[in-house]
Every structure is written in C-alpha cells, then in structure tokens.
C-alpha cells in the first residue's frame, strides 16, 4: 500500500470526485466542521438542562458543586490544554513533513489524554466512596438532598459524555499513529491528521466550559 501511495500522478489517496489533494483537504475540513456543529448542539442540550436547573435551584447547585475535587478539575484543564498544544504541533509537523516529530507529538497527545482519563477515574472513584452517585445509595449532607442529586446527575452525564469523547479521540489518535508508522500519512497527504486534530480541540473546548460551570460554581461561598 505505501508504494502505491507514493506513486506520482494520480495518488491513491485522492478520491475520484476531487480535482486534487488540496480540494479534497478543504472538503474534508468543511465536512468535519459540519460534524462539529452537530456536536455543539449535542452537548448544547445538556448545557441547556444545566442552565434550567441551576436557575431553579441555585443553592443546591452551589452546595453540590463544592463537593467536587477542584484541584483535579483544574489539573485536568491544564492537562487538556497541553494536549491541545501537542496536537497543534502534531498538525504542524504533518504540514512540514516531519514524520518523526509528528509521531512523537501524536503519542504525547495520547499520553496526556490518558492522564486526563486517569484523573477523571480517580475522581469518579472518590465520588463513589462518598455516595455521590445518584440513585438509591445517594447521600448528601444538608437540606438540598433532592436537588443536589440533580446536580450530580448532570455532572456524571456531562463529564461521562465528555470522557466518552476522549476515549473515541484516543482511538482516532491510535489509528493516526498507526497510519504515520505505516507510511499512509505523507507530506502530500495529511488531511486525516488535521481532521483528527479538529476533533481533539473540540473536546478540549467542551471541557473549557464544563470546568467553571461544574467545579468553580460557588467556590466563593465561605471563602
């Protein structure tokens, strides 16, 4: 397969409907953005639910939010932003034809993604021990028992869906790393790296909003 891809003239990576690789690149980028627009609205529904319940039960949301591990959320924000930097550098390496750098940046991005999921798993475990998982065993000190459970339901669905996107992203990056290793990705064909990068950055952006809305809400109460 790699030999066929490097053949001059009509590269095997070019689909029939496109005039050239550049046109194909622009079309795939636009297609990815259309997908991301649907993702904005996919998460948007959850943000709308959050907004409604937070408006109705502000005290419960403040009390419940204060139970989250703020250092873990902050660290994870930094980890994800760093992974976005390594992803941007990976795309840059792909565009400039630096294969070895591209592979290392992809692996660094994946490693940071794993660190994020590890910290998230630790948080979920701590919340499990505290009986903060909604359901028959849910426990919450204070008068806001029922509505605090609502906050935690939203917290687990929103961060869980985000974590699912991270796992999908890690799968995508594994395929990309494999393709770079196999020589499918060349300095003439790196569209898949750019598109995977767009997805990775989008997942980072979702977290940029989740972090203040879930972890930082109500930190100002009692200092």
């Amino acid at each position, binding site marked *: 397969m790699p030999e066929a891809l490097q053949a001059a003239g009509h590269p095997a990576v070019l689909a029939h409907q496109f005039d050239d690789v550049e046109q194909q690149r*622009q079309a795939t*980028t*636009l297609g990815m*953005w*259309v997908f*991301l*627009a*649907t993702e*904005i*609205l996919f998460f*948007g*529904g959850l*943000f*709308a639910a959050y*907004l*409604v319940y937070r*408006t*109705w039960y502000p005290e419960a949301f403040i009390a419940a939010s204060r139970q989250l591990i*703020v250092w873990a959320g*902050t660290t994870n*924000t*930094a980890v994800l*932003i*760093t992974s*976005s*930097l390594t*992803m*941007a*550098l990976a795309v*840059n390496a792909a*565009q*400039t034809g630096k294969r070895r750098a591209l592979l290392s940046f992809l692996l660094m991005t994946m490693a940071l993604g794993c660190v994020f999921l590890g910290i998230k798993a630790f948080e979920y475990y701590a919340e499990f021990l505290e009986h903060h998982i909604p359901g028959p065993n849910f426990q919450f000190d204070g008068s806001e028992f029922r509505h605090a459970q609502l906050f935690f339901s939203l917290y687990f669905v929103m961060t869980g869906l985000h974590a699912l996107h991270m796992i999908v992203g890690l799968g995508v990056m594994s395929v990309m790393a494999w393709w770079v290793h196999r020589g499918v990705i060349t300095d003439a064909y790196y569209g898949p790296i*750019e598109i995977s*990068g*767009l997805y990775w*950055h*989008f997942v*980072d*952006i979702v977290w*940029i*909003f989740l*972090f*203040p*809305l879930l972890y*930082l*809400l109500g*930190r*100002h*109460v009692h*200092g």
Partner: protein
Amino acid sequence: MADHAASKRSYFAIYAVLMVCTYLTWQVAYFDLGPLNTVAALTIAVFKAALVILFFMHVRETRLAWVVVAGGVFWLGILLALTMGDFLTRGWMTRG
C-alpha cells in the same frame, strides 16, 4: 518554511495565554463578586474557546469554516434563548 516556524511560535504563545486564563478563572472563583462570578467564568471560557478555535483549529485561515462555526454557535444561542425564555417567564402568568 518561515511562516510554519512562526505559527509554531504562536502556538506556544497561545498555550501560555490559555494557561494564564485557566489560573485566572480558578483564582477569581474564590472571590465573592455576586452574579459577576458567573459572568467572569463564562467570559474567560468564551475567550479561551475563541483562541482554540481561531488558532489551534485554524479557523482564522479557513474562511468557509467561519460559516459553519457561526451557524453552530447561532443555533446553540437559539436553543438556550428559547429554553430560558420559557422557564424564566413562567412565573409571570400566575402573578398577572
């Protein structure tokens, strides 16, 4: 090659700004600013998201993507505005 090297430098600059903003949003949350706490948190989040979209996702250079990004954000605005338009005005009926 020169412009690629320049964009690489700009990635590190954007990264530094994003990290400073993360630190800011975390610290500001501990001050009691009343309703401004939420305003500050969301302003910083929107600013960070804009940096990622414009620079890391290259929307600054991709004209066509502007339309789709704007469309996505606009529809999100409709979703949030109409939902809250309902929930925030429910009390008006019973009072009147």
